[in-house]
């Protein structure tokens, strides 16, 4: 496993020029999570439109390149998606992080994070934003009191 396959250009690009940084006042979905082992912090905010689609998505926080680029790509990816579609993306992303074989083309540029699956200690960095999104959606929909898997 070479370093270049972990730190692909897409990842470094999102890390150095993160997209959709910030907070949304009156967000519909919001959750902030920390990764206690390495101190990564990610907050995800979504604004939904009348049809329940993601009208705007932003993230805030700090941490390593994997956690920050994953959050940045997440916000780009979920814009315009329905909540069910967002949940499917979360499920696909977790599957990819388990290292399972499969077709992840629907994840688009997020496939660049596939290499993280080979670095067990960094998987939590990559999934942090997705856990925040998942728990934010759960809270909004009253599932499980916001507990994640």
């Amino acid at each position, binding site marked *: 496993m*070479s*370093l270049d396959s*972990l*730190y692909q250009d897409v990842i*470094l690009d999102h*890390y*150095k020029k993160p997209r959709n940084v910030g907070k949304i006042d009156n967000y519909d979905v919001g959750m902030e999570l920390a990764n206690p*082992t*390495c*101190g*990564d912090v990610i907050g995800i905010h979504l604004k939904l439109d009348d049809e329940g689609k993601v009208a705007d998505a932003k993230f805030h926080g*700090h*941490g*390593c*390149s*994997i956690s920050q680029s994953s959050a940045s790509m997440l916000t780009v990816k979920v814009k315009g998606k329905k909540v069910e579609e967002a949940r499917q993306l979360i499920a696909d992303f977790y599957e990819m992080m388990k290292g399972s074989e499969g077709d992840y083309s629907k994840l688009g540029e997020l496939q660049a994070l596939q290499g993280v699956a080979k*670095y067990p200690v*960094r998987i939590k*960095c990559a999934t942090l934003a997705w856990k925040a999104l998942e728990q934010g959606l759960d809270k909004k929909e009253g599932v499980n009191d916001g507990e994640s898997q």
Partner: protein
Amino acid sequence: MFDVAKIKRDFPVLQQEINGKPVAYLDSAASSQLPRQVMEAMSRYYETSHANVHRGVHTLAERATSAYEEAREKTARFINAPLPQNIIFTRGTTEALNLVAYAYGLHKLQAGDGVIVTLLDHHSNLVPWQQIAKLRNANLYMVELTDEGLLNMDQFRSYLKQGNIKVVAVTHASNVMGTITPIKDIIRDAHQAGAVVVVDAAQSAPHMKIDVQELDADFLAVSGHKMLGPTGIGFLYGKGKLLDSMEPFQMGGSMIGLVNYFESNWAEVPARFEAGTPNIVGAVGLAAGIDYLTALGMEQVEQHERQLLAYAWDRLSQVEGIALYGPREPRTGLIAFNVDDTHPHDVSTVLDAEGVAVRAGHHCAQPLHKWLHTAATNRASFYIYNDQQDIDRLVSALQRVKEMFGYVAR
């Protein structure tokens, strides 16, 4: 002469390649590696002498008991404790410090009493006292640092003057800043104020000569896995009259005198504080590690690390965009640093790909990192098997980090 190449050959784990490169192990402050001699002592124990201790009269029980008690004697000699009974085997520093907090602090502290902790303390010497202070309505006082990263001794002395301080919990060598604290002065001043001193020696005992009688320490905690031993073994040194006056920490087998239906009394020290079957092979391994260090000579170990530290400080200082934390002196053989604004996790992943092992994170010292205004740091630490080449490898791997991440402006 201190022959690092020869020493290195005693460490099988250092003979391998990691990611196609020979391993430069710079994480001994987290856990040191084990020389062959320690592993052999442990398997010899299992092959010839294993049984439960203090319980049987058969030959193997006898051998196991003497192996365990010999380990206690060696440990006592290593820190110049007056008697083997001053040594209580524990899982490590954390358990030793919790033992003091619960078996001493919980019983002796009263409402309004004071406990002094310091910003250099590892969570294991801080959080137990937070908890005991809460349970006893005692007050906690935090000694902060000077700009250079030394303990603020004026603040320390002003706390002592309050007259209510009963316990001072202090680290001998910081696992982040590297700072060696003026432990002798601290102990003398604390004693004058009527307080006992709990010394966390996890980062000092592996690297320098410790003499508990000369220091006049009341309690001192050490982990075996940071001084060539296996994990799961460490020890607490305590003064005899303090240990004798203490209630047990855990209850069960081996620590009792007479057990009746509704109450029991306690065994003598140290058995009183070693409930249940102990980590016998761990104690054997710890003692073998002590033998190895003693054969090298602790003065020579310290000298070797000082040379490496000077070299590393010099080389690292020249890396553009690097921040080194803590004072240049007095310092033990570790350096925490950050490069540009690159997150320590990214730094250590890149270093690992180059075969260089360092630690990244908050190193169980969150209040200190808050004070440093950084969430995490990288830490390179040195031990007997490290040489200048390991440091050269670190420095050139940092260039690789800079190539990948260096120009991030945040």
